[in-house]
């Protein structure tokens, strides 16, 4: 599966796009394939503090619940209300319209480039 090369990734199957001090975060297609149809998102509140590597929300499919981890430390600046209303967009377009939240970054956690993330998922 080819993945976008214009962003970075985490071992928790999230993607991070850094732009002018803001990190936009979503989950990868690998994650949505594993989860199945996403039916509920519990995203952190705008203004709340998140810590790199720490749980900050939940993503639920019909079959399972997974924690969302913040890939960076900082303050939540926006969340994707459209995805909260209609979580199916996360399956339909995980790298675009299905983004989850944005963080004003104070510090980055460990991030992988697309090649390293692909190697990780290929290992199964």
């Amino acid at each position, binding site marked *: 599966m080819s993945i976008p090369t214009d962003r970075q990734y985490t071992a928790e199957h999230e993607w991070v796009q850094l732009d002018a001090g803001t990190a936009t975060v979503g989950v990868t297609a690998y994650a949505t394939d594993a989860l*199945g*149809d996403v*039916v*509920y998102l519990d995203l952190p509140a705008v203004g709340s503090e998140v810590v790199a590597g720490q749980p900050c929300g939940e993503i*639920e499919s*019909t079959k399972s619940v997974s924690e969302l981890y913040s890939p960076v430390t900082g303050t939540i600046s926006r969340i994707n209300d459209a995805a909260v209303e209609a979580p199916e967009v996360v399956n339909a377009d995980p790298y675009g319209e299905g983004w989850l939240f944005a963080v004003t970054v104070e510090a980055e956690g460990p991030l992988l480039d697309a090649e390293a993330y692909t190697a990780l998922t290929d290992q199964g």
Partner: protein
Amino acid sequence: MSEDLSTPLHGEHVAAGATLTSFAGWQMPLRYAGDLAEHHAVRTAAGLFDLSHMAQIEVNGPEAGAALDRSLVSIPSQLADGRARYTVIVAEDGGIIDDLIVYRFAADEYLVIANAANRHTVLDALTFRSGGLQCSVVDRTPHRALIAIQGPRAAEILAPHLDVDLDALRYYASVNGTVDGVPTLVARTGYTGEDGFELAVPANGAVGIWRLLLGAGESAGLVPAGLAARDTLRLEAGMPLYGNELTRDTTPDEVGLGRVVKLDHEFVGRDALVARAQSPSSRHLIGLVGSGRRAARAGSAVIDGDGTQIGAITSGVLSPTLGHPIAIALVGAPAEVGARLEADVRGTRQPMTVVELPFYRRPA
């Protein structure tokens, strides 16, 4: 994973791009395109399921009926030829070993369908309990496949490819026919809450029938459906699942299956069930509904108005058909329909209301 068994339809699932999962020692399709679409297809059109992992155990011989009567909580020898019954096998202490469907074809010819996880346990129990009786207990699972076609359009999709009259086939009845030249046991049974059929066929005929029905049903909205959709469909229909609601620690009475137990015959576990019936049941199976979209899942504590934990959820999901959370729970005391309880959903208390099962009933 590599030690998992594969069904005769494994290649079809791989070719279709299914997400496979390891289930009860088998590689099974979890979903194809998406579990919600598959769920809705079964409710509105039809879905095709590979259930070849389920155990198919033949019990044949002049005393086959007596052997099953002794082994199960119901009385299969009293079934009419061509009829089937949902039943349970319990241990000496009355705990549930498995739930089963038993088919009677003739006085000396029966088929037992058991859960994949319990195949060897049920086979061993039936073999042991039929000791001394003139019958054979034979595991046919490796040589057979089981395909279910379920949904309001299942009958019209299947009928043209079958040489028997489906209109005459009642719920929980079976008939021998031919599909695509393959001898097929057709049963009007299922685990989805919809009308539908289960087709037991020789393993080498499965791929042809699978392809035939997928092609024939495509314009009617038939899709292949995986275990994820099967689970949400059965839960909406209020049907218990072995491993969730049904365990060795529960008796049929406790999980609302008292109706299948016939205490007026001798069977293994009867004395324990009679003794337990003397004292009030310590567990009760209830249905719960919530609001919002956050589902209480198996393991969540169920809490009463006093803040006391009274039990736990055994299955829970955001119902795809109803749009709100539904759950089955085992609790320590009977709960009135309409009673307001709470579920601990990963640290947050969520109100849930006791309802009658099933959550979903198909339109008449």
